[in-house]
Each structure stands twice: as C-alpha cells, then as structure tokens.
C-alpha cells in the first residue's frame, strides 16, 4: 500500500486546518446530529435545535479567529481561499442559519415533523454555503452548490403530506436541476475555452483573447443562468413564488436569504475572479438581468395578496438591485463588490426579520394573506413596529438598513461614470418607488385599518421568535444608522484573482 503510494508521484496537498475549520466544525456537528438521530431517535428531538444552534455558534469561533488572524489563506492550488470576503460571507451564512434555527424551533417542534433530520439537512446546506464562500474553482463551486441545494430540495418538501409542500419541492427541485444542468454545460464550455477549472486561470485565459468567441459567450451566459436561477432573477425566478408559498415558512426564509446569498456568492466568485477580463460580455448581461428583475419583480409584487408570495416577488426585485452593481463591475470592481456584499448582509437581516414576523402573526391568523394583517397595530403593536421596520427597510427608507444597501448599489452605479450605470441607477430609483407601494400597503393595512372581525386577542410569540426579530431588527437599524458598516467594503476579490 505504501509502496503503491510511493510509486505514484501523488503528494497530498498541504492542508491548512485552520482555514478549513469552519467547514469542518459544521461537518462534525452535522455528523453528530445525525448520529444522535440514529442513536436516540425521538429522544433527541428536544436537543436537536439546541445542538444545531450550538453548531452554528461554534462555527463562528474559527471564523472569528481567522478574521483576527487576518492572513489570506489559499489551499488546493487556489481552489479554496479564505480571505476577508469569504469570511464575511461565511459569517453571514452562519448567522443567517442561526436565525433560521431560531425561526424553526417552535415551528418544527409544534408541526409534528422530523426534527433531527431537519436540522441535519439545514446544517449540511449551510455547510455548502460556507464552502461556496471560499470556492474559487469550478468544481468546488459546483460541489458547494449541490451541497447546499440538495438538502434544500428536501427541506422545501418537508411537510410531506401537504400537497403544496410537495409541489413546492418538486418545482424547486426540477428547476434547480435544470438550472444546474445548464450551468454545468456552461462550465464545461468555459473549461473547454480556458483549459482549467481554476477561476484565476480562466480569467487569464479568457482575458488574453480579443473578442470573445461564441463558445465563451455561451459558456458565460449558461453559467450565469445557473446562478440567476439561484438568486431568482427574472426570467429564472418562476420557481421562487411557488416554492416560497408551499415550503415551510422557516425554509422559505432560509431559501430567500441564505440560498439566494449563496447564489450571489458563487456568481461573484465567478464574475470577479474568473471573468474579470470579460466585462464586455458580463456587464450588459447583468444589466439586462438586473433591470428586468427589479422591474418585473416589483410590478408583479404589486398584485400579490399573499404576503409570502409578495416577498418572493420582492425578492426577485431585490435580486435585481443586487445584480445592478455587477453591471458595472468591470469599471469599479471594489465598489461593486462592496455594494453587493453590503446588500446581501442587510437583505439577510431585514428579510429574515420579515419572515420572523410573518411566522409570529401566522401563529394567530394561520394565514399569510395580506388582508389578515389589517389592524395588527391594534393588537400587536410590537410586531407591527418590527414588521414596519423590516418592510420599509426593504423599501429603502432611511434610517433603516435598506437605504444603505440601496445607497451602496447606486453609489457603485454612479461611480462607474458611464451612461449605462446612470440609467440603471434611475431604474433603481424608479423601482424603489414602485416597490414602496406594496410595502407601504401592508404598512397601511397594519396601522390604518381595523382588525378583521374586531378580533383583538394578543399574539403569542415564543421567545425564539422574539430573539430572531430582535436580532434582525437591531442589525437592520444599526446598518441604517451607519453604525456597523465596518469592513464590509474592504473585501476584495480582485486581489485574490491576481488580476
């Protein structure tokens, strides 16, 4: 055996355990959770959510130590990179996951679902995301993507006997598979054009050429389509409303935030590292996707009566805003990257918060219809204020976080100092106004109308939900006031790409 090993000239690549520590921690806890399930069966139910929370908090430890260390780390020939950017994204995924656990605790426990598996799958999906943050190689990205997607398909179908949940999972699954198939096809073309799966190498190979060949263009577009699906950009958003509506609400929150963010992370990895020299193709592509997503998403959201579907379409529009900086990424890479990262973080906070309130309200109304939000202010003022914060933050009203996110986007667009950037900026501006309409409509229903049937009984909100709402609200406001912006924009993928 050792002879065999010695005979081959394979040398195990050096492994920086510290760099991989977050993934390994998650993996260990995930395995533990699964073992517990196998060993304890139902007895482990109570402990599982606690364990999941612990897993996520424990994962934060290596992330923090890595951040404190401050050195960029590279493994596997550049396929796995730990830098500021990836750490921030990892932290975001982990914390978003933590909030999702908080959201899930009561929902899953009270709903007669399988709990241990649920958390196990959740952790494995988060693992995929955390991995994605460091992935700088097509294969890694693909594996990470599937690692985060496959558990998510199952989570979406978690309410096994519910037709809607089935349908949600089915649609999510099939569309996901189609999209990853297209993406893979695109990856194969990129690989073929550059001869490497490493993004840095791809960049070098593609940048060297003059005009892009059709194969490259096709590859870029197909790859982009794969992630556009993930971030639910128009016209690849079709699954999102149905899946969001049908999936269990915590899972919806998870999908709408973490999964979307993972899609963006992957997209940014590819775009900023692998395609930095091909902004002539990518920028107009992103421009079209961004403009179409924000406009169509907002317009359709106007007509929604179900708050979750509305948030799904709002999510499409938000994806459009987030894609917008990528339309000028070649001109102002740092600003554009910073804008997307900031937006992702803030979006995570406010959207999770909104879902937390939806879950809290649904505990009384058993419904997610907007009409059931009427008069909420009169019997649940705290929830109303929280919901108002989240909704108007999504709309981008200062001093709530959303404005800062949008500000960064517009800043990047204007900074590019070209017509397409400014026009897209105007798109963002006009769309913010359209979007306000449906957000404010809910605000109006909550504040300005009478409760249906005059039912003013209080809403019983469990502690975990309160905690989730509190955390997200604080983060949302803190961002809005400019208190914790910190290093979010110091991230640079350009350095990593060497370009």
């Amino acid at each position: 055996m050792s002879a065999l090993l010695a005979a081959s000239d394979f040398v195990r690549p050096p492994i920086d355990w510290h760099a991989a520590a977050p993934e390994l921690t998650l993996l260990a806890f995930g395995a533990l959770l699964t073992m517990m399930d196998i060993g304890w069966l139902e007895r482990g139910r109570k402990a599982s959510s606690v364990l999941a929370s612990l897993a996520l908090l424990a994962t934060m430890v290596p992330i923090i130590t890595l951040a404190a260390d401050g050195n960029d780390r590279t493994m596997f020939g550049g396929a796995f990179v730990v830098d500021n950017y990836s750490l921030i994204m990892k932290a975001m995924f982990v914390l978003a996951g933590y909030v999702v656990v908080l959201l899930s605790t009561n929902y899953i426990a009270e709903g007669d679902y399988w709990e241990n598996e649920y958390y196990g799958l959740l952790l494995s999906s988060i693992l995929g995301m955390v991995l994605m943050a460091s992935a700088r190689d097509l294969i890694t990205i693909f594996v990470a993507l599937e690692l985060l997607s496959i558990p998510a398909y199952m989570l979406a179908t978690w309410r096994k006997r519910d037709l809607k949940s089935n349908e949600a999972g089915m649609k999510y699954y099939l569309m996901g598979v189609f999209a990853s198939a297209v993406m893979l096809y695109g990856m194969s073309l990129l690989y073929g054009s550059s001869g490497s799966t490493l993004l840095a190498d791809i960049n070098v190979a593609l940048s060297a050429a003059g005009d892009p060949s059709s194969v490259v263009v096709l590859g870029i577009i197909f790859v982009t389509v794969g992630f556009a699906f993930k971030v639910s950009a128009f016209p690849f958003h079709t699954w999102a409303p149905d899946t969001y509506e049908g999936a269990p609400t915590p899972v919806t929150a998870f999908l709408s935030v973490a999964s979307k963010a993972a899609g963006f992370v992957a997209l940014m990895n590819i775009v900023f590292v692998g395609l930095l020299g091909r902004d002539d193709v990518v920028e107009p592509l992103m421009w079209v996707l961004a403009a179409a997503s924000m406009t169509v998403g907002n317009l359709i959201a106007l007509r929604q009566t179900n708050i979750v579907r509305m948030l799904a379409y709002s999510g499409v529009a938000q994806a459009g805003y987030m894609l917008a900086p990528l339309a000028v990424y070649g001109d102002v890479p740092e600003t554009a990257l910073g804008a997307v990262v900031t937006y992702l973080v803030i979006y995570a906070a406010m959207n999770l918060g909104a879902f937390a309130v939806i879950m809290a309200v649904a505990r009384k109304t058993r419904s997610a219809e907007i009409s059931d939000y009427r008069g909420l202010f009169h019997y649940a003022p705290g929830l109303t204020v929280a919901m108002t914060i989240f909704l108007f933050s999504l709309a981008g009203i200062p001093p709530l976080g959303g404005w800062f996110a949008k500000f960064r986007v517009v800043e990047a667009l204007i900074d590019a100092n070209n017509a397409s950037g400014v026009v897209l900026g105007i798109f963002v501006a006009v769309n913010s106004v359209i979007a306000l309409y449906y957000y404010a409509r809910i605000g109006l229903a909550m504040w300005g109308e009478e409760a249906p049937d005059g039912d003013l009984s209080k809403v019983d909100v469990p502690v975990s939900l309160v905690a989730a709402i509190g955390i997200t609200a604080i983060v949302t406001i803190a961002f809005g006031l400019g208190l914790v912006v910190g290093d979010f924009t110091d991230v640079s993928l350009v350095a990593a790409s060497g370009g």
Partner: protein
Amino acid sequence: METIADLDWLLTALVFAPLAGALVMALFPQDEEELHKRLALLTSLVTLGLGVFLFVEFDYDNAGRLQQFVDWDWIEVIGAGYTMGVDGMSLPLIGLTVLVMPLVFIYSWDHIPKPGNAKAFLMLMLILETGMIGTFVAQDLILFFVFFEVVLLPMFFMIAVWGGEDRRYASLKFFLYTLFGSALMLLSFLALFFLTTDPATGEHTFNMLVLSESAGDGIVRSTQLIIFGGMFIGFGVKVPMFPFHTWLPDAHTQAPTQGSVILAAVLLKLGTYGFIRIAIPMLPEAAEAWAPWIGLFAVIGIIYGALGCLAQTDMKRLIAFSSVAHMGFVMLGIATLTDFGINAAIFGMVAHGLITGMLFFIAGSVKERYHTLEIDRLGGMLVQAPKLGWILGFCAMASLGLPGLAGFWGEFPAILSAYNPAAGIPEETFRGYMVVAAIGTVLAAGYLLWLLQRTAMGEPSEEFANDPEITDVSTIEWIAWTPFLFLIVLFGVAPGLIFEVTDPAVVESLNNCIQVGCEVAGG
C-alpha cells in the same frame, strides 16, 4: 469658509433629544396617556430649551459662518461624515421647528385624533422632530439625506393612522411622491460626490461645505444640468412645486391637525431649504441655467395654487392648496439667485410656516366643533365663536400678504427680487414673472377673503345655530396659538429679526458661486 466650533455637543443634543424622549416613552405602557403627553411635552420643551440655548450661543456677528460645527467620522466607507453646523440660513428654520413642536404637543393635550393611542402618536411626532432639526443642521449630504427621509415614515403613519376618510390614499401618495423625489435626489448627490474632490484631502466628499466651496468646479456644464435636474425634482416634490404638488392637498386634507401643522410649518421647508443650502450653492452654473424654469414653475404654482383654492369646497383643502401658491413665492425668490431673493425665500418659509400652520390649527378646531369643513355648510363663525373667527380673519390677512404681518415679507421681497434677478438670468422673463406673481396676490386675497366671508361672516346656518359644541377658543388652544399669533405680528413689524440673521449666510453662500462666475445682483 471658516467654521466656528465651540460646543460640539449642542447640535447633537438638539437633534437627538426628541428621539431620546421617544425612546423613554417607549418604556411606558400605552394606557398611561397623561404620562405620555407630559413626557412628550417635556421632551419638546427640553428641545426648545436647547434651541434657545443655541440662539443664545449663536454668534450673530458671524451669522454667515457655520457655528457649533462638528465634523466627526460616520460611515467612512462611503465618505459620509457626521458633520453638523448652524448658520444664519438654518437658524430661523431650527427656531421655527423647536418652537412649533411644543405648541403642537400642547394642542394635542385634548386633541388626540381618532383612533387614539397617544403614545404612538406623540412618539411619531418626536421622531419627526429629530428628522426635521437634523435636516436643518446637517452639513453632510448623506446625513442630510438620512434626516430628510427620516421624516417620511412618521408623517406617513400620522396620516395613515390618524387621518381622515381617505387617509390610506393620501398617505401612500405622500410617501410615493416624496420617495420618488428623494431617490432622484440621491442619484444627484452621488454624482456630485464622484465628480468633486476635496482639495484638502484629494478625495471625494459629501461634505456640504467643501461642495459649496468648489461649487461645481470642474464639472461639465451638461452634467451639472442633469445633476441639478435630479435635485430639482427631489426638492421640488417636497416643496411642493407645480407639477409635483398633487400629493400636498390630499396629505393636508387627510392628515390630523397636528400633522397638517407640522407639514405646513416645517416639512415643506425641507425642500426649499434644500434648494438654497444644496442645489444652488453647489451647482451655481446649473442653477443659473435652470433658474428661468424654476421661476416659471414658481409662478405657475402661484397662479395655479390660487385657482385651485378657488375651486375648493373644503376649508382644509383650500388652505392646503394655498401652500402651493405660497411656496411659489418662495421658489420665485430662490429662482432669482440673488441674496435678496433668497433672504425673502427664507423669510417666506418662516412666515408660511407660522401662518399656514396657524390656519391648519384653526381648521382642526373648526372640524372639531362643526364636524365638517365644507365651506358651504359653515358660516357665522364670528357669531358663535367670535375669537376663533377673528383669528381666522387675522391669519387670512397675514396669509394674503398684508404688510405689518409676517406674510408680506415673504411675498413682497420675492416679487421685488424678480425684477432684477442675478446676472445671466433673463431679466425680461423674470419681470414677466414678477407681474404674474403680483397678480397672484390678487387671487390670494380672493380665495382667502372668500373663505373668510363664507365661514366666518354671515349668520350661522340652521344646522349649527344652536349647537352647544360650538364654543370659542379654549385655554389650551390659546396657549398653543398665542406664540404663533405673536410671532406673525412680530416678524411683520420687525422683519429684520430674520433678515439680519439670514443675510450674511446667504451672501456667504452666494459668494462661493461668484468665484465660479455666477454673479450676484443687488449685493
């Protein structure tokens, strides 16, 4: 321009005192109404005290320079600073704000509109106050923008929750319009940011002081025009300027009295303040090119607002429309780009704030007594509530620009300045505007006296003839109103109190643009 920094805590305290009060109020349960009223009033009085202190500390000999100046880091990544300062341009408006708010709280003592919940209502107003004061002291574009927008939400909810029949429509409209404006405004701010560098640091900056000093230097003319256009819409919506005005009548009509008063007294001034603080000093060249258009919209607004008033059947809506006309005068003064005109505009803002605010108070009290504001159904108020009627008459006179009362000094100098706008602006056009604006004063007299005649004069209609609810001005109302009435007279008799404060600041701000070739007339 040099700044004066003596008390670095003062402005921060002034801005955030109301917010702090609101947070304290949040700790107490909703049903302790009296406590909340007291807390709110106390907070606003503390703020007023800080405001008075600011007035005392203010160095009137250096009214042209920014005082109590602070320039701390805030959001470094985007280059936004926590920069605040007060000069003669903002001081009167701050004074107006801190003064109006306690009076509104006093008025609220027995006028909490349906559906109640004093706690939330008062808290919203306190947040509003923070936003308004903040806007007037901010010396950083982003800080300005944030405060500018902070007022949106509380006002939205004040209208949406405590408003009249059509409150949902009105509040949404208000919100959508202003957001639209500020979204474009933000684009302009950003463009300005990226096209200007601070000569001291070599970096882009949002610092309004630096931007005013560079005054669009080095920005291509066509770009300047576009940037100014964005600000024009942003501020114009808030003013509101024709044709962006349609949110105003709805918002005013539906808002609760307190909301209308605040809206009229302070909120509308944020837009005009933006023009004189930001748009004009920072882009004088574009301002010059835009000036004829601003002037045109201003005079259209004057005539149009007046015609709109003549068509109204609802007292409150009429007053609301009159704001369009009055702010037209303010905008006309601004459009001249002369120090004289801008002084007039600032005076006009304060005067309009006092007068129209007062008119809305009256409308609120009329509504409370008669349960309607339909002009046709009212009448004979002078018989049943003579003091209320006379106050209405007084305010109508003030509003139509009677000399000796504050309204005149906003209107007349604006018209005067239009005769002789800054160099580079077509004189003939503005003289035409002047005549139109002067005709606007006739229409103003028309609708106001018509309102007065039909509501206050004559015999009470049968419907209300023996209505015991129709009482004269109550003590609370007197307390809340007397300062308004007093100031309307005081500023009418001694307009120098405001002009002398604003003048150096305005001259200073226009001086900057002289350096880039925009001349100032009359100075």
